[in-house]
């Protein structure tokens, strides 16, 4: 079995830096989600771990072997490519069997393993077809099945479910998690879908601009974002950041005031939309509703506190509409205080 150590990996393409000093440790059997916006370097990092790209500097250790200089085939891992890379000239069966054939596994085992992987991904009906006759989502599942068929110790997945419809994605997600947990596969799962990352991962690494902004358990990332970027990227709708003046260790705005850390003249109050109570008549922030969107489970209000745009998730029966003004009471316990200059969270 195999943990992964990524040690100060840097990657530049000419003058452009794709990754600047990424360090990351993934325990044996752990499921780590790499979450980040498009172009932040997720695929590049995965390709470096797989050996398809050479890092500018740094080391990759898998298990207790330094694989930094090894070719991909000697790294003992499987990968699901972002663009599938399903072989067009082989049937689905042969595609899924490819890794096993390379390992010279006997025919009976190949058949058994291919069928197991195919059943898992619901692609049994297409085993004899060629990929050109499959939809994007079906091809994507072939790519996942091809990786699972070899029962890898380390599995790298680059947005493996991005092309499935919401329902199928939900189903595949939980099945995948079950299978990988059972087999104890060390998994790095790239996604830019934060619900997917939250639902699947033991830990999430949030990347931004070639840097890992924060690593931690999903709930931790959600509740205690280390930077403004993380708070804004994780969670839908994103976290609100309300700028408040500070006086004598207290941040105050409108009728709201709370103790805060730091020593600046201003501070950012990070607060999730669902962590603000509507308190008609009470002390708090005066909030003018501009848009009210009923989302079923919540009523999403977009509006302004003074001139700062924020979102509030209210009960669906709150009965508010555009133009109303109400008072908001942020739950002090759930506030994350951030430095407005650096965007970093301040210790409480």
């Amino acid at each position: 079995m195999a943990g992964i150590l990524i040690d100060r990996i840097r990657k530049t393409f000419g003058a452009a830096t794709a990754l600047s000093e990424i360090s990351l440790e993934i325990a044996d059997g752990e499921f780590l989600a790499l979450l980040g916006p498009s172009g932040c370097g997720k695929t590049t990092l995965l390709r470096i771990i797989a050996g398809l790209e050479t890092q500018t500097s740094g080391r990759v250790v898998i298990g207790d072997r330094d694989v930094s200089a090894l070719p991909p085939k000697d790294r003992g891992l499987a990968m699901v490519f972002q663009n599938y890379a399903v072989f067009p000239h082989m049937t689905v069966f042969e595609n899924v069997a490819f890794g096993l054939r390379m390992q010279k596994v006997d025919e009976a085992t190949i058949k058994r393993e291919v069928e197991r992987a195919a059943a898992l991904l619901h692609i049994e009906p297409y085993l004899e077809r060629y990929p050109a006759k499959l939809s994007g989502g079906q091809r994507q599942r072939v790519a996942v099945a091809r990786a699972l068929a070899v029962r890898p110790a380390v599995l790298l997945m680059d947005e493996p479910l991005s092309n499935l419809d919401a329902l199928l994605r939900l189903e595949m997600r939980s099945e995948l998690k079950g299978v990988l947990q059972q087999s104890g596969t060390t998994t790095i799962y790239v996604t830019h879908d934060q619900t997917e990352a939250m639902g699947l991962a033991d830990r999430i690494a949030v990347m931004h601009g070639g840097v890992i902004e924060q690593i931690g358990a999903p709930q931790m990332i959600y509740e205690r974002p280390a930077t403004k970027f993380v708070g804004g990227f994780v969670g839908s709708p994103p976290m609100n950041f309300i700028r408040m003046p500070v006086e004598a260790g207290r941040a105050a705005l409108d009728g709201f005031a709370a103790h805060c850390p730091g020593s600046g003249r201003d501070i950012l109050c990070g607060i999730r939309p669902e962590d603000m109570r509507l308190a008609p008549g009470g002390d708090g922030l005066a909030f003018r509703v501009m848009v009210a969107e009923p989302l079923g489970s919540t009523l999403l209000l977009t509006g302004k506190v003074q001139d700062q745009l924020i979102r509030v998730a209210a009960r669906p029966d709150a009965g508010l509409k555009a133009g109303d003004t109400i008072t908001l009471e942020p739950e002090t316990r759930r506030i994350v205080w951030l430095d407005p200059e650096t965007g970093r969270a301040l210790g409480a």
Partner: protein
Amino acid sequence: MTNSRLLPYLLVAPSVVFLGLLFVVPLVQTIVIAFTDQGGASLAHFRKMAGDLNFGLSLRNTFLLVAVVIPLQIGLALAMAVMLQKLEKGRDLVLWIWTIPLGVSDLAAGLVWLAILQDRGYLNSALFALGLIDGPTNWLSYENPTTLFIGIVLAEIWRATAIVLVILVAGFQLIPKEYNEAAEVFGATGWTRFRKITLPLLKPSLQSALILRTVLAFEVFAVVYALGGRNYPVLVGEAYTWMRDSQNDGVAAAYAILIMVISLAATLLYIRLLRTKPETQA
């Protein structure tokens, strides 16, 4: 509806007419000449062709040349194309240099190699200077059929491998690199990747290259005549001789028909052997 179905035909019509005039008409004329004698249908020209002393020899020589040159050229071009893919910089420059012989006419190519291989040519000068021979040796005479053959093969490879290379390089560029990467991740060695991924995906280009090269190889003439004259008779050479020296259009036309039939057969063979189902392409 009707319009959009007709449109493709309208668009290809000019080229069809053009080819019809410049290709089908002479073809029909050649067939007529080959199959008529003194005003009536006849196989006399073919009988005369087959009865000629050089016929069997030129047939055998042409096939031998094709059988040796084509595999060598395909193998070489494949190797060159693979090497080109590995180059990070200067790929275009190398390709450009490799394709220079394409700009040389086949007669000129034959003369280049004649200058190298003839009895007072560059090869002999070099060998003499090295003390390996003690006087001019005629590599290209009919007494030395093996060296003459090798000389022709060399000249043909030098002259015409680049066209195969160009087709294969274009084919390589159509294969997304992800397929090779995926195979590599799943444990395929370089050779396995070449056999299981690259070659199958290259099949359409290989087919085009083979058809083009083989048809042209059956028409080999100028290089052979520049190097060996009639010491190494080939089919087109015989057609030329019957036409020019014997002033016999009929037998020359019969040769032309024979070459065409052989080329067509080779083409059909390649199309059958290297058939790719459309759904299995990249």
